[in-house]
């Protein structure tokens, strides 16, 4: 099952509380995740499953989480290296990349979530 969504990224309290401690497992837990409402989660599997989020700009594996504040078809990944693996780099002539409103596809995967160090190593 591949779910088509609109992806947004943004701050969360746990992302902020661990932002100066990016090598910690707490930071990874806070930011390497993707929130969908329970209806969308149920279409894919269960909360806690690993999912691959794909956009035309890249792909990343993160943990599936439930957030019933999200409307159907809206995915949220906390800002950070995992979210930024798939956001739109185009600054649209005003310097700001596209961190919100990115068409994305989500599917369950057995692949593991990369550590921050491993994720950045892919760019070298």
């Amino acid at each position, binding site marked *: 099952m591949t779910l088509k969504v*609109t992806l*947004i*990224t*943004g*701050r*969360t*309290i746990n992302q*902020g*509380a*661990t932002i*100066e*401690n*990016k*090598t*910690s497992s707490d930071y990874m837990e806070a930011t390497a995740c993707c929130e969908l409402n329970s209806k969308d989660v149920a279409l894919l599997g269960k909360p806690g499953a690993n999912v691959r989020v794909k956009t035309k*700009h*890249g792909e990343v594996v993160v943990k599936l989480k439930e*957030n*019933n*504040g*999200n*409307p159907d078809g*809206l995915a*949220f990944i906390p*800002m*950070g*290296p995992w979210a*930024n*693996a*798939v*956001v*739109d*780099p185009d*600054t*649209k*002539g*005003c*310097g*700001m*990349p*596209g*961190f*919100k*409103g990115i068409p994305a596809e989500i599917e369950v995967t057995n692949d593991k979530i990369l550590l*921050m*160090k491993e994720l*950045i*190593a892919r*760019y*070298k």
Partner: protein
Amino acid sequence: MAVITDALCPFCGCVCDDLTIVTENNKITEVKHACKLGAAKIMGHHRIKAPMMRKDKHSEFKEVSYEEAINEAARILSNSKRPLLYGWASAVCEVHKKGILLAEELGAIIDNTATVCHAPSTLAVHEKGLPSATLGQIKNRADVIVFWGSNPVHAHPRHMGRYSVFAKGLFSEKGRKGRKVIVLDVRKTETANMADEFVQLEQGSDYLVVSALRAILSGHADVVPESVGGVSKDALLKLVDTLKTGKFVGIFFGMGLTQSKSRYKNIDNAISLVTELNAFTKCVITPMRGHYNVTGFGNVCAWETGFATAVDFSRGAPYYNPGETAANDVLIRKETDAAMIIAGDAGAHFPADSVRHLARIPIIQIDPYWNATTEVANVVIPVAICGVEVEGTAYRMDGVSLRMRKMIEPTHPPDTEILEKITERVKVLRGE
């Protein structure tokens, strides 16, 4: 044991100034009154111990002396044809001043974290101005509070208690009971759960919704369709009525506006709405700034160069054109050939394409902490933590300047000292 009262928080744009810090043997043992974000930063984490360098991006770091790291940083920067100096928002204004001098010396581009935050708001302010107020005015007077594309429960946890929703003031003695709280967002956030009215928009439709509100306000409700951006016309009419009849309306906005489709035009339109509302009542608009001193960088840069951010010194005089000179513009175009990342983490907060380019060019990192930028850095220079170990000036989100206090003695040199030494060394290398 020492107790510091009325200490200032170096985390978000609220810059709360009522913290109590307990220290013992130059260690912070307790932080009182801070939110989870502020407490986590002030209590501290594992630090980078000593300066580090490595031969290439794939090899391991080796500890070096400060002198060696500073010399290498100066060598990289003075050899660069298109250097980028980026970050700044987690440092005090005194650091910004030194950074701008270095940028001018190098003919570099200097940009700050607003480039992925509120820089589009600055573009909108160029167009329309900013009908705003201090947080004190809002606390004392506002009876209608609006959060648009902003989630303070997560990003600015004490904002509602100190300055907006719950704060009791001179003409707002009832606090929460005397206020109407409206949240506009694409998802029902924890902030939305606390609101009297939650208006749920379709993602990317903020510009349309602002335009519809302006049409209704100017007496043209007849041209507004039954639904705009997922919001019913009835809800829009009700919202305009609430805004018009408020005695003092305080609107706060966040990344929901600056990062969505239309970018700065969303804010441009929202400022026009605020201006027009002032024909009926008092209405002000304030960006919810993220880092505690991102506003400070904008101020220092504006008075030193004439522009708030994304300033290019390569022509010998300051030039500014976000879309061309902002950090992600020059990285994605692969124009930058060396970068210094200081008091900000481009490695974590820039899109993959930008980080991919950072991984190909020499990078100097100046920061207290190991972060994603460290993973692509060649030279790493650890520094003292501004606002915890170094005093200095910071600007709150409403542009009020405050003096950050030193809580404990630093174990590392301050950013200002490192920047001065790099600048001196650059001048020597250039034969000046």
